[in-house]
């Protein structure tokens, strides 16, 4: 064949026709197989659990549901981009704690998720769940996702080593008592100048532990209306206490980190106590099988005797996107996955995650004793704590406020190293006010949020 523009152009044309044809065929094929609902999730253990029961839902409703597992960061960024540009989004999506803030940074009517508030009240589901958990999924008193979990926090400890040290963990009722015990056991065992045993795992450059200690005292970064509220004496006192546990020769804490470092620290007995929300107790079981029977769980020490002995760390919520064409069906699926006591019990066995549905706490699966934790009933411990889990309000600027808390902590470390504890709290408070004002300035620049707040 004599193509007028030469062989190269002919080859390019042929490639274009063939690839175009394949693309057309596959997209038509995909459209004909399009399921009734597409649900995107980021946790592999959720996928396993949902796949087990989805068949029943599909049979009951005569529909097809597609489950898509996407890594957490990719899911968040793709969802952000798709909602911003109006591109295709899943019908249901599991969101990570804190992420709602980003999606609710404009007027409520612009939030890309269905407002579930009326449905929850009309169907009398609101009070079935731990009510404080709605805070993570709410903006301006409207609820945009169904909470998947409670994530109460306990302390996990090396039972065998603590027994050897003759420490009564039940006597550790307040942080002051814990601190005293910590000072006694934090020691340099081999005389090289570096302690080889610490009481508590506390991060030195991120804010998750400070945050959960603040939440334990009901100290939020933002209040229910989205206003900045972290520049308080409670925050200053907590950070000052945190600095003194992590710095100086009297420190009791070490940053064990994550992954291999954490496993090594736990196995070596370098650190004896760890902040442990329900999900982390499963991670310990899976990552450190050699510690079988050597770990134990106790509630967090309280700040004052009789005060709250837990906090919260993390969370997942299920949202229905406004683009979903079958919102009622999606709502049925959400209830099917999140509210069935028996399934939630089974799922607890696989994840150790306490569901927010209070009635599910009585299922046998949640009451079971676990050999890994020395015969303790992990479910019983966490469900008892779940009742007093504090709310956690979110804002589009939660991450920013979190980094400001870390900055205040690091500045306080510098102050403590130079001047000691004298005037530490006052210096932290003044720094907190400065950082809070910065967050207020950034928040004040969001014309959409400011405008929607101004509405009656």
């Amino acid at each position, binding site marked *: 064949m004599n193509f*007028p*523009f030469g062989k190269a*152009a002919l080859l390019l044309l042929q490639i274009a026709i063939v690839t175009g044809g394949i693309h057309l065929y596959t997209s038509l094929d995909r459209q004909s197989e399009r399921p009734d609902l597409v649900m995107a999730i980021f946790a592999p253990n959720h996928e396993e659990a949902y796949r087990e029961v989805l068949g029943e839902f599909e049979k009951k409703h005569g529909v097809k549901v597609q489950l898509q597992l996407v890594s957490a960061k990719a899911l968040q*960024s793709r969802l*952000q981009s798709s*909602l*911003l*540009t*109006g591109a295709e989004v899943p019908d249901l999506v599991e969101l990570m704690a804190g992420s709602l803030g*980003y999606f609710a*940074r*404009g*007027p409520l009517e*612009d939030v*890309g998720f269905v407002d579930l508030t009326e449905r929850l009240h009309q169907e009398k589901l609101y009070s079935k769940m731990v009510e404080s958990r709605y805070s993570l999924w709410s903006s301006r008193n409207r609820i945009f996702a169904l909470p998947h979990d409670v994530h109460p926090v306990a302390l996990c400890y090396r039972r065998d080593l603590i027994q050897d040290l003759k420490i009564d963990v039940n006597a550790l009722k307040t942080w002051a008592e814990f601190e005293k015990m910590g000072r006694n056991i934090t020691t340099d065992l081999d005389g090289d100048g*570096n302690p080889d045993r610490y009481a508590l795992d506390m*991060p*030195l*450059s991120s804010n998750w532990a400070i945050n959960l200690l603040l939440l334990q005292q009901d100290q939020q970064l933002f209040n229910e209306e989205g206003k900045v509220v972290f520049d308080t004496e409670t925050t200053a006192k907590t950070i000052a206490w945190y600095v003194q546990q992590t710095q100086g020769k009297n420190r009791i804490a070490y*940053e064990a*980190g994550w*992954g*291999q*470092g954490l496993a*090594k620290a736990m196995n070596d007995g*370098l650190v004896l106590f760890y902040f442990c929300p329900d999900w982390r107790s499963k991670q310990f079981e899976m990552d450190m099988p050699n510690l079988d029977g050597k770990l134990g769980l106790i509630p967090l020490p309280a700040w004052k005797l009789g005060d709250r002995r837990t906090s919260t760390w993390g969370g997942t919520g299920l949202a229905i996107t406004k683009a979903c064409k079958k919102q009622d069906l999606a709502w049925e699926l959400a209830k099917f996955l999140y509210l069935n006591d028996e399934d939630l019990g089974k799922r607890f066995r696989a994840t150790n995650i306490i569901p927010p549905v209070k009635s599910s706490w009585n299922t046998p699966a949640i009451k079971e004793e676990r050999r890994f934790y020395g015969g303790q009933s992990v479910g019983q411990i966490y469900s008892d704590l779940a009742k007093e889990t504090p709310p956690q309000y979110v804002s*589009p*600027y939660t*991450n*920013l406020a979190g*980094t400001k808390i*870390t*900055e205040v902590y*690091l*500045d306080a470390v510098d102050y403590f190293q130079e001047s000691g504890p004298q005037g530490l709290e006052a210096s932290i408070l003044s720094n907190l006010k400065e950082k809070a004002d910065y967050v207020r300035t*950034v928040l004040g*620049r*969001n*014309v*959409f949020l400011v405008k929607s707040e101004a509405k009656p």
Partner: protein
Amino acid sequence: MTSVSKKAWVPWAFLTPYLVLTAIFFVYPFLNSIWLAFHQTNGPKSSIYVGLSNFDFVLQDPLFYTSVKNTTIYAVVSVLFQLPLSLGLAMLLNSGKSRIRNVFRLILFSPHLVGQIFVGILFAVIFTPRYGLFNIGLQELIGWGLEERWLANPNLVMPALIIVSMWLYVGFNMIYFLAALQNVDEGLMDAAKVDGANRFQTFWNVTLPQIKPVAIFVVVMSTIGSYQLFELPYALLGGAGPNNSGLTIVGYLYSTAFESGDLGTGAAIGWLLALIIFVISTLQIKIAKVE
């Protein structure tokens, strides 16, 4: 040539796919970023003209200056330490046997093949206090460093970033220098030797002037690359690092635009970054030409 190919529309027809793609992925985003820099947006439906407010905020934001300071330190140290090392390695390899040269060239270049994200994850393990290879190595060699928190101590974050980037880029820049050294005129080298020049004089007066165009290219490209640093600190520190000690300009842009959702301010930061790179590159080229 056939009469068909002489038609005026033919070249345009062949260029059309390129032009369409360029218009979609370069011209449109370029123009849109100018528009964005003067607006606040919340999705495609909502946008408000805010004039110079985005630029005004960025120029008053202490975080912007922290990011500029961090990026500049990184860029300066990269150029001052990395490039002499790259040149030194290239000269060593240039003087060796060709078979050994190829093996070492591959070994030194290979870190660049794995990419910044992988390297970030790898070094996060290497820098682990007490258990990390780097910390244990330092302790064994100089009796210090076992407990040091390279990624958690604000004073050590930048040195850690520089160490990792040297591991990544020294071999990469070495390839440019090696190519330039292989093109140095042997006749001139011989003439210098005959005239009694020592090794340093030969390097300074013969080698360096001949590899100057490549050296300018490497300096400019390294500087531009340094000012665009993002993935490495992001993977290594999981963000800006303690007290923003690893916050770069692009990191600041990312956090503003995609974590806080303020695309307008993000676009303004992007334009300020473009301006910074333009000014520095122009200066570097002018200084090099004057010399």
